[in-house]
């Protein structure tokens, strides 16, 4: 359990105080001690000192986490429970006792199909009709969730970029960024995917990677340097690129009455990458759109429940977390709940429908496209 041993001091220094538990989205729903960060630290304390076997029950608890990083920012003892849990997931995976079977199945699909949906790679860019150059400085990395689940949004993204004359290409052979296996502790698989994408970026002559997905963004920015060593590309989120375009007059946005929207900070952009302002600035550039913040936003933003493999392991729990976030969004009186992560969007949308909420969930791309003078959208 080498990967866990590395964290032995951190585990021992945990005060079992429960400060981190207070804001954990999973604990907030289930209220089982073992399903919050403090409980997980207690379990790992047992494992690391050889007092507790990593039985399937124990392992599963370590995976019942959205990787939202709320616990990391709420520990005054400077312990990062999430990092410890990732170490444990890696150790358990190496020892062959993890990930739990739904996650393992998902990872196997990624090995087979290069995406988590069991779809053929040919379908990845079926929605893309526009001719794009073979090589470009800027590569739009679409990511699996957007490519297979939100192709309309991606079409709109491409229209916006093209309307602005932004020069870019895509990787026709793009494979899953590896986020899912990375957080499952399947580091070898994540590494293989990372190496494959890194080679494709090189081949495309890219210097900048633009992605519409919070998960891909944080994987490139935070995980790839660890997985592939020297990963020297500039990483930009699509919302940042469109904000710059809109600011510089590259696209013209029209007023369509007035509408109130609220913005959900994806954990993997916010707490993981300290990326808060560009989507907000973009929203504020749209005439007639008023941004109302939720009670918990930016570093304090509550999680959508979709990350860390939780949606794969416990979909019901994942959506219940999203329902809480939808309720917070409703409290702002907004008509739209805007986000910049397709996974958050999917989960929040599911929750909103289940709650029969009036709130409409969309990507910022959809909002911009709907106000674009030259293209239609949502």
């Amino acid at each position, binding site marked *: 359990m080498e990967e866990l041993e590395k964290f032995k001091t951190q585990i021992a*220094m945990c005060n*079992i105080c*429960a400060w981190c*538990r207070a804001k954990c989205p999973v604990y907030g729903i289930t209220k089982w001690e*073992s399903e919050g960060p403090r409980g997980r630290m207690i379990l790992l304390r047992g494992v690391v000192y050889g*007092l507790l*076997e990593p*039985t399937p029950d124990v392992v599963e608890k370590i995976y019942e986490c959205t990787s939202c990083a709320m616990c990391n920012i709420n520990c005054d003892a400077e312990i990062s429970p999430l990092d410890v849990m990732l170490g444990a997931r890696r150790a358990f995976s190496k020892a062959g006792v993890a990930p739990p079977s739904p996650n393992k199945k998902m990872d196997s699909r990624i090995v087979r199909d290069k995406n988590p949906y069991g779809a053929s790679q040919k379908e990845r860019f079926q929605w893309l009709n526009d001719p794009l150059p073979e090589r470009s400085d800027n590569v739009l990395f679409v990511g699996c969730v957007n490519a297979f689940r939100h192709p309309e949004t991606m079409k709109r993204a491409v229209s916006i970029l093209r309307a602005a004359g932004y020069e870019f290409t895509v990787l026709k052979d793009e494979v899953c960024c590896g986020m899912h296996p990375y957080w499952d502790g399947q580091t070898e698989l994540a590494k293989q995917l990372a190496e494959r994408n890194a080679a494709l970026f090189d081949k495309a002559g890219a210097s900048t990677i633009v992605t519409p997905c919070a998960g891909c963004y944080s994987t490139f920015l935070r995980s790839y340097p660890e997985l592939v060593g020297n990963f020297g590309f500039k990483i930009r989120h699509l919302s940042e690129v469109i904000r710059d375009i809109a600011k510089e007059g590259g696209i013209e946005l029209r007023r369509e009455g007035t509408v109130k929207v609220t913005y959900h900070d994806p954990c993997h952009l916010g707490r993981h990458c300290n990326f808060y302002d560009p989507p907000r600035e973009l929203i504020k550039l749209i005439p007639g759109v008023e941004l109302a913040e939720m009670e918990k936003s930016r570093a304090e933003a509550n999680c959508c429940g979709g990350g860390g493999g939780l949606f794969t392991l416990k979909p019901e729990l994942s959506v219940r977390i999203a329902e809480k976030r939808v309720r917070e969004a409703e409290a702002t009186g907004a008509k739209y709940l805007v986000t910049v992560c397709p996974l958050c969007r999917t989960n929040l949308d599911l929750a909103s429908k289940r709650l029969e909420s009036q709130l409409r969930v969309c990507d910022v791309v959809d909002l911009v496209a709907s106000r674009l003078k030259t293209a239609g959208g949502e």
Partner: protein
Amino acid sequence: MLGRDDICRFLASVVGEDDVSVNVADLYAYSMDASMRMSMPVAVARPENREEVAEILKWADENRVPICPRGAGTSLSGQAVPVKGAVVLDMCKMDKIKEIDLEDRVAVVEPGVIYDDLNRELGKLGYVFPPDPGSAIACTVGGMVANNASGIRALKYGATVDHVLGLEVVLPGGEIIKVGGRVWKSSSGLNLTKLFVGSEGALGIFTEIILKITPKPRHHGLTIPVFQKLEQALETTVEIMRRGILPSAMELIDDICIMIINNVLEEKLPMGEALLFIENDGYSKVTVEEESRVVRKICEENGAQKIIYTTDAGRIEELMRLRHTLANMLSKLRGENIPLNNVQDFAVPIGSIPEAVRELKAVAQSHGRLMAIFGHIGDGNIHIGTAINPWREEDRKAGAEFARKLADIVVKKYGGTLSAEHGLGVTKASLVELEHGDTLEYMRAIKRVFDPHGIMNPGVMGLLEVPRDEFVYMPTRVVA
């Protein structure tokens, strides 16, 4: 004796299958509280109302199944460690604020309400439940009542006991009783309400709590004097109290704590052998400023080298939060060791603070022991941070010896107490006779009245037996 399957089946028949667990991961997660002591429960159940609690306690009493009530498990003295294979009753589902009544000036809550959540709601109305423990973000009102918790602002506003007006309690056997009520005062009969406060889950389970609420003070002044000598800070404390000032908080932070804070946080505190955080509050700005002025004068007279003073509410909150987080930052001091819990929470009479601290420090020095001193010094509460290696027999022996020496000084010489606010739990049970002597028998007699079969939280306070030392419930290997 009932087997695990029978226990599980019964609990599920009361609270439903989803709220019972015998899964090894759950049992292990509930085997500890913040004291880091451990004992595996036989099962965990989560009742939702008083009837479910009553049904479980009736059955438990009949079948002699030990029960460990649990709030948030933040006890620092091992009050929520389920010894003797107890069933843990996690009160998290009983977390409703039932009523806030400004005319009666009371809040009626279920025990699982988190302290901060209650104060958030009270705050909207301009009120507060003031004890303010360091664990405010996580601990439950039920746990606070069972422990008689207090904290930074207890100096002026009192401990939990000063705010509990009434309780609904389920007793072993399943009887539901109500003690106290909504009245602010009563001289009618023996005060059973106060008896239950601080009972560490050893007498019964609270299912409803009626609290007196306090209007939030509108003005604050925070004075932070820096002293070259720890003794100057302690003398200042005594002098402030002697002159009739009653700050809302008076906290001591010694040089080790200052170094830890400065190492961890961006906020840098001025260095000295000690700092005091003295907060004055009130409903009129003039009074707060006048009291703060006197406080500053006393600090100067006692040799404060530098004094920081602010009335900015945001800044005061930041600085007080910093004091709140100190207890957690102390893990920097212990590393992989564990805290020596039974010396963590002494209190001595206010006038004896300087002398007592001097003596405790001298013992630490003679034992070659690194020791941080901080705490709610205004009411004589001295927190001591020191650690032992739990895996080394000689370390444990030395720790036990050290603790006994300090306890002797605090209790015998100064008439102090082993615990100002963390309770005795299982970690201080070995020292209980030292403080309570013959009166321990009266406590045991009371325990027998309410809990004749000794099913309620066995192990705490030495009410059933006095353990040989504080290390009886150390982590052990668990077989799934």
